């Protein structure tokens, strides 16, 4: 099982690296983002008129590319949930009980 997970992780990493090799080089004048420059020019020219936001980065981040930002935020939450799931709780009392028993578990630890 452990080796299966390791193999899956390595496979996923290889797929990501393989996909990254298909990206255009940095500063490539023939990159799609440079050839079809309507996107960048549109942001620079129209961002304030369309969103009333002087900070263009914020307008792109939260509005034009909001779906991407949503994915980033969900990744952060997934990291927190993974921490809670993977790392063990301090004591069975803190883990087994509901919301009421967790402060008791922490207070027992604090008086250590």
């Amino acid at each position, binding site marked *: 099982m452990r080796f299966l997970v390791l193999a899956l992780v390595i496979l996923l990493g290889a797929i990501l690296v393989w996909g990254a090799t298909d990206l255009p080089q940095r500063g490539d004048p023939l990159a799609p983002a440079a050839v079809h420059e309507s996107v960048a020019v549109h942001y620079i020219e129209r961002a304030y*008129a*369309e*969103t*009333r*936001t*002087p*900070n263009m*980065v*914020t*307008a792109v*981040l*939260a*509005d034009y590319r*909001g*779906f991407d*930002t*949503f994915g*980033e*935020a*969900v990744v*952060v*939450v997934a*990291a*927190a*949930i993974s*921490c*809670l799931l993977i*790392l*063990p*709780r*301090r004591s069975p009392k803190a883990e087994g009980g509901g*919301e009421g028993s*967790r*402060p008791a*578990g*922490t*207070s027992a*630890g*604090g*008086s*250590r």
Partner: protein
Amino acid sequence: MTSVYESLFLHTVARAIVPIIQVFAFYVITHGHYSPGGGFQGGVMLAVSIILLRISVGEESFERFPRNAGIVLAGVGALCFALLGLAPLLLGGSFLDYGREFFWLPAPTAHYWGIFLAEVFIGILVWGSLMAIYDTLAGGGEE
């Protein structure tokens, strides 16, 4: 839990500096329209203020910010952000289409407030996530 240093200086400085950090965090979140900043940065600062309390003051910080508050805040932030994105779908728009969502406002103003709400929800989400991660890492694995 973390070791609590019995130092008057540390307690005093931490209690004095935490509100300043939090006010600056709210400034960073709400001023993202005009300056560098936004939800991610401000949320990290909010989380750092709580973590400073956890390290310095220790036990008393759990009274106002209990152990399971972090993951609840993260979930609430993510849910609100998702609802903010999904609401325009019910009104015939696309995902995160603020102009369709706040249809009673003129379109630029609607986008302005949509960005603002998104930043606030991201701030809550990052705040709660980092609190949850810290509490889990600092509190787990000890007997």
